[in-house]
C-alpha cells in the first residue's frame, strides 16, 4: 500500500520535472523560463528526494536525502536570480509581451551597480 503511494508520488515528481523541461522550451524569454526552472524543477526534485527518504526508512539515507532537499531550496532560487540578473545586465531584451519594466534605466553600468527606486 505504501509502495503504491510512494510510486504515485515519484510519478508526480517526474511529471513536475517534465513540466519544468517543457517550460524551458515553451516560455518566451529567459526571465519567464527561470520561473519554470526554479519552481517546478525544485519541487519535482525535492518531492523525489522526500519519497526516497520515506521509502528507505533508514536514518542515514533519509538524512542525506533531506539534506539534498534543503540544498535544492537554498540553491535553486540563487541560481535563478543570478541568471536573470546576468541576462538583464548583459542587455538581453525581455519578451515583447512584457507589460511593465521598473528595472529599466536603473542599472548604472555593465558591472551591475543598481540604483534604488527613488533616485
Amino acid at each position, binding site marked *: 500500500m505504501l509502495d503504491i503511494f510512494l510510486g504515485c508520488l515519484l510519478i508526480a515528481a517526474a511529471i513536475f520535472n517534465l513540466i519544468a523541461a*517543457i517550460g524551458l522550451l515553451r516560455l518566451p524569454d529567459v526571465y519567464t523560463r527561470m520561473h519554470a526552472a526554479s519552481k517546478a524543477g525544485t519541487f519535482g526534485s525535492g518531492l523525489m528526494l522526500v519519497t526516497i527518504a520515506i521509502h528507505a526508512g533508514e536514518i542515514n539515507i533519509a538524512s542525506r536525502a533531506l539534506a539534498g532537499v534543503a540544498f535544492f531550496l537554498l540553491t535553486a532560487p540563487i541560481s535563478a536570480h543570478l541568471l536573470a540578473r546576468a541576462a538583464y545586465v548583459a542587455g538581453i531584451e525581455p519578451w515583447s509581451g512584457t507589460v511593465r519594466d521598473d528595472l529599466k534605466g536603473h542599472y548604472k553600468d555593465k558591472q551591475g551597480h543598481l540604483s534604488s527606486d527613488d533616485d
Partner: protein
Amino acid sequence: MNKIFLINVLLAFTWCAVQGSFTFINLIFGFLISSAALWLIREQFGTSKYFNRTWLIIGLIFLFLKELFLSVVRVAWLVLKPGQSYKPSFISYPLTVDSPHEITLLANLITLTPGTLSVDVSDDNKTLYIHCIDVEDVEALRKDIRDGFERKILEALR
C-alpha cells in the same frame, strides 16, 4: 534566545547520558522531553519567548510549503495552457527588512512563490526588483508580500 536553545540541547545530551544510549532517536526524544521541561517553567524563567519564536518559525515553514505548492501548480498551468497570453513584468518592491540575511531569506522565499522571481537588490538595500510572470495588479502583489512573508520574517527573526 540561543542560550535557551543551547540549554535545550544540553538537557537532551544529559538525557542520553542518563539513559546510556546515544542513538539519534533517543537524542530527539531527549530534546522533546527537555523542551517540555523548559515549557513547564516558562512563567518562572521567561522561556515563553523562545517557544513563541519556535512556533513562528514553524508557521513560516508551513506558509512557505503551501505557497511553493500553489506556485508550482500555477507555473505548470502557465506552461501547459495553449497560447502565450500571460503578462510578465518587472516591478520594484520597497523593502522594510534591511539586514542582509533577512533580505536573502525574503528574496529566496519570493523566488519560490507564485509567479515571482527576485532579480536584484539595489546597492543601498532599499529596493528589491522582482520579475512577475503574470501579474494583474501590482499594488495587490506588493501588499501580499508585505503582509505575508515580510511580516512573518520580521516576527520570526526579531
